[in-house]
Each structure stands twice: as structure tokens, then as C-alpha cells.
């Protein structure tokens, strides 16, 4: 009986938290519409729309995960608290409001710059995905082969470890000098940034596959190509994903830096050029976009990883 009561209690508590989070967003929306902190045109409308969107997303996620909603509740509570914090700081002018603009002013930037930002997202993502995909496509076969043939491994693994830590941005001047366009040289630099960590992941993965599994494959009389793609690749996959995540993060940072240095489009360039004009509302708007893009990209990565390693997860 008591256990049942406790169950009801935790259920009620979680529902209370859900209501609290919804209440926070409702309050934020009302306050924004009635007395906005910023005065830019369209600012309060866009910010309010953004809040409504988050509230709907929250309700949707809660519905999807209604069996275990604790994580979602906590996550959105944190988002709500950060926005409240932001409001309080700017309303009370606790820091220079020119540097930290109120949310309404930041979101007003989207009404003006939406086209630049959208083309920036497109330009950044196309460079990132092209460079990253080429890096994955090159690192996997090379790494599988290197991890497998001991002689090659002994030479190549130290080389990869030595070249890996060189920051990819070092290659930018060379790439710009040697390659025809900024696009091509950015793709190259992203490729370099992602290639080494993925390669090290693949080689380490192959090297650590249990030898008995490879023996088991050999007893089936498999040829080398089949062993490489059907045994070594899946066996090394956990380690490959680790390397690929590091590669993804490095290539994202590299891309931002490369755009700051030498581009005339993209999210990094947008942040840089707005910063130069001391347009800090736009810088913050850009940072919000960057973090949303990062969340989106890592979400795709996690999906692929979950699928690729579903056999491992099954353990529990």
C-alpha cells in the first residue's frame, strides 16, 4: 500500500514539474507581450513565437516520453530558468545591456538578417558535411586495412598519432594558396580535421577486436574483403563512433575558425562580421543559431550511432 502511495507521489511530482515548466513559459510569453524588455521592431513577436514553439516542443516531447518524462522535464526547466535569468539580468541592467542585449532585441535580428543567416547555415552545413563525409569515407577503409596488417599498423599508427594533434587551422594558408576556391580549401581543412580522429578510432577498434572472433570468421573460410567489411568493420564500430564524434566536434570548430579567417559567408563569418560592428544582438542571435545547428547535427549523429550499435545496447 505504501509503495503504491509513493508511486502516486512521484507521478504527481513529475506532473507538478511539467505544470511548473509550462507555467514558466506561459509567464514569459505574457510578460514579453505586455512589457517587453527590448524595443526593437518585431522583437517581442518573434521572441514570443519562439517561446510558444519551445512550449509546444516541450508538450510534444512529454507526450512522446510519457512513461519516463523526468529527463525532458529537467531539460526544459533548465531552458526556462536560463531565459528567466537572461530576462532578469537585462531588465535590471546588471551587466552592460549593449553587450548582453535583452532577448527581444536579439530575436529582432532574425526579422532583418534571416536571409543571411539561412544562407549561412546552408553554406556552413554543406562545407561541413562534404568534408566530413569524405573524411569518413577515406578513414574507414584505410583504418581497417592499417589495423589489420601488423606491419602497416606499426608504421602508420605512430604517424597518425603524431599528425593528429596538429590543429587543422594550420593548414588554412596552404589550402587557400593551393586550392582554387574558399569552398574547396574549407572542405579540405574540415577533411583534415575530421580524418585523424576517425582514423585513430578505426585502427584502435580493429586492433582491439577479440582475436577469437577473427578466428571464428576465418574458420568459415571467408576471403579478406569479406572479413574486412563484415567482421572488422562492425567489430570496430564502437571505437569508430568514438573517433567520429571527436572528428565531428573538431571539424565544426575548425569550420567556424576557417569562416572567421577567410570567408564571406557562413555562420562563423556572420558572428565575426557582426562582432566587428559591435552589433552584439546579432552576435547573440548567431550564437543561438549555431547551438541549435549543433544540437541538430549531434542528434543525427546519435541516431546513426544508436542504429549502428543496437546489438551492443541489447545487453541490458
Amino acid at each position, binding site marked *: 500500500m505504501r509503495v503504491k502511495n509513493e508511486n502516486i507521489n512521484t507521478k504527481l511530482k513529475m506532473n507538478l514539474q511539467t505544470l511548473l515548466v509550462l507555467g514558466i513559459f506561459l509567464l514569459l510569453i505574457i510578460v514579453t507581450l505586455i512589457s517587453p524588455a527590448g524595443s526593437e521592431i518585431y522583437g517581442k513577436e518573434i521572441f514570443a513565437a519562439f517561446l510558444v514553439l519551445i512550449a509546444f516542443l516541450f508538450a510534444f516531447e512529454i507526450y512522446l516520453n510519457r512513461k519516463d518524462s523526468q529527463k525532458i522535464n529537467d531539460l526544459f526547466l533548465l531552458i526556462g530558468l536560463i531565459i528567466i535569468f537572461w530576462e532578469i539580468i537585462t531588465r535590471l541592467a546588471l551587466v552592460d545591456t549593449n553587450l548582453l542585449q535583452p532577448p527581444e532585441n536579439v530575436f529582432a535580428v532574425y526579422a532583418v538578417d534571416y536571409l543571411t543567416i539561412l544562407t549561412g547555415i546552408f553554406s556552413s552545413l554543406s562545407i561541413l558535411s562534404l568534408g566530413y563525409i569524405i573524411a569518413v569515407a577515406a578513414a574507414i577503409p584505410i583504418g581497417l586495412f592499417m589495423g589489420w596488417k601488423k606491419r602497416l599498423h606499426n608504421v602508420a599508427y605512430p604517424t597518425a598519432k603524431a599528425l593528429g594533434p596538429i590543429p587543422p587551422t594550420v593548414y588554412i594558408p596552404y589550402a587557400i594558396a593551393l586550392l582554387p576556391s574558399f569552398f574547396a580549401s574549407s572542405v579540405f581543412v574540415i577533411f583534415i580535421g575530421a580524418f585523424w580522429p576517425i582514423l585513430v578510432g578505426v585502427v584502435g577498434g580493429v586492433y582491439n577486436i*577479440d582475436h*577469437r*572472433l577473427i*578466428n*571464428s*570468421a*576465418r*574458420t*568459415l*573460410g*571467408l576471403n579478406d574483403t*569479406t572479413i574486412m567489411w*563484415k*567482421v572488422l568493420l*562492425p*567489430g570496430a*564500430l564502437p571505437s569508430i563512433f568514438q573517433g567520429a564524434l571527436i572528428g565531428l566536434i573538431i571539424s565544426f570548430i575548425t569550420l567556424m575558425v576557417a569562416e572567421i579567417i577567410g570567408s564571406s559567408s557562413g555562420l562563423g563569418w556572420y558572428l565575426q562580421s557582426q562582432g566587428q560592428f559591435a552589433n552584439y544582438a546579432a552576435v547573440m542571435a548567431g550564437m543561438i543559431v549555431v547551438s541549435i545547428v549543433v544540437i541538430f547535427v549531434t542528434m543525427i549523429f546519435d541516431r546513426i550511432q544508436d542504429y549502428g550499435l*543496437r*546489438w*551492443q545496447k*541489447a*545487453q541490458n
Partner: protein
Amino acid sequence: MTKIEINNVSMNYELEEYSTSALHNINLHLEDGEFVSIIGPSGCGKSTLIDIIAGLKKPTQGTVIVGNREVTGPGPDLGIVFQDYSLFPWMTAYENLRFAIEHTNENLESKEIDEKAKKYLDIVGLSNFANKFPNTLSGGMRQRLAITRMFATEPKVFLMDEPFGALDALNRVHMQDLLIYLWSRGEKSKTTLYVTHDVDEAILLSDRIVVMTPLPGQIKEIIDIKFERPRCRNDIVKCAEYIRLRSNLLSLLNEEMLDALAEQEKHMRDLV
């Protein structure tokens, strides 16, 4: 006709400071369709011997002939089951079977492979677990699947390295029955070499038992088991012959163990 002939096989491991002899001058001939068990204390080289016959290791000296072919590397004619690690963890039960059948029978069509994989899953009662990954299966089910995979690839000989070593007693009894069922199911039973450290298992399954001794690994004695097949577990354990065989085997193994212990003690005394 598939015989296994092991001629003068020796295996030395060269370590940095000294070399050890894992196998010394092994001669063993298995007749077509014979079930032979190798029994011995750990470190007597029985797993090494299986690896050599499977073509996974190259002997320092001597040859292994299976059928008409001298073994130089692993191949689909040599079916093998290890204690664990025979299955690929990233493939489901069905995919594991299908993959093995596909790559050991190059001339089968896709549809035939599917049918065969399903048929074998059905025979061993794993149809309901076709889409499960090995990690989610119990140890007993995993080994059942590994053995099924070996039978499904239809090799000429079966090599098994303590396949039930990690299972509990009850599961082991089930698996022994299943093994004998699969082994004697076709028109003609296949030549089998089976490594174990379980005396009762060896007597129940084998036509002959090879007792090995360590340091260096060599054959000490070969014992014929003449119980008629099919054997009934409950009947043979009551036979006087069974009890005699069992105590004979145990004393052979014990002798070895006592010798090894005495040796070790002497070695330690020398050190002091």
C-alpha cells in the same frame, strides 16, 4: 570418407627467455564417422591441437590431413565451435546462421539460404529468437546457436573446443543430447574431435577418449568406449563398465595432477 590424420605434430612456443613445448609428437588417426574426445588437465595443449587441425595455427613440425587435403589454413570443410566467441555479436541469431551458410555454400541461391537458415533455427527451437542479438540470449542458447551454425555449414569434420565448458550442469545435459541428436541425424555421422575436461561427458559422447598430459603436451593413453549407440544417459551410468571406465580415467588424470603438483613443489623447494 573423411579421416583425420595427425602425424608427428609438435608445437613449440618461442618465448623471450625460453621455449616451451606445447605439443610433443602427437600421432592420432580418426576413422570416418568416429567421435573422439580429448581430455586432460589445462595446459596440456588440447586447445592448441584443435587450432592446428582447424588451420588457425601452424605446427612447428608434422602434418594434419583431413580427408585428402593437408591442412594449411582454415576452410569451410572444417567446422569449429569454441567455448564462446563463435558467434558475431553484431548479427542476429538468424543473420549469424545465414551469413555462415552463405559463405560456406557459394553456389546456393539467396532463397535457398534463407530456407536453410530458417530450417535449422526451427530444428533447434530458436525460431522465436531469430531476430535477437547474441547478447540478449542466454549462454545455453548462444552455444546452441553456435553448434547449429556449425552443422548448418555442413563441414566434413567437426572440431569442438570445450563448447559446453561455460554452461551450468542442467544446460550441459540438454546440449549434450542436442549434440548427439544433430550428430547422428544424417545418414552418416561425421568425424568429430571434441575437447573437454568433463569425464562423464567424454564417456557419454565418444567412441574413443584420448588422455593427454602436459609439459610437454602428449598423448598418455587412448581408451575405447564400447557402449552401444544410441546411449541412454541413465542406463549407462549404472553399468559396472561405466564405473570402471570413469575411475580409470579419473585416476589417469589424478596421477597427472599429483605428478604436476610434486613437480611444482620440487621446483619451489629448489628456489628456496
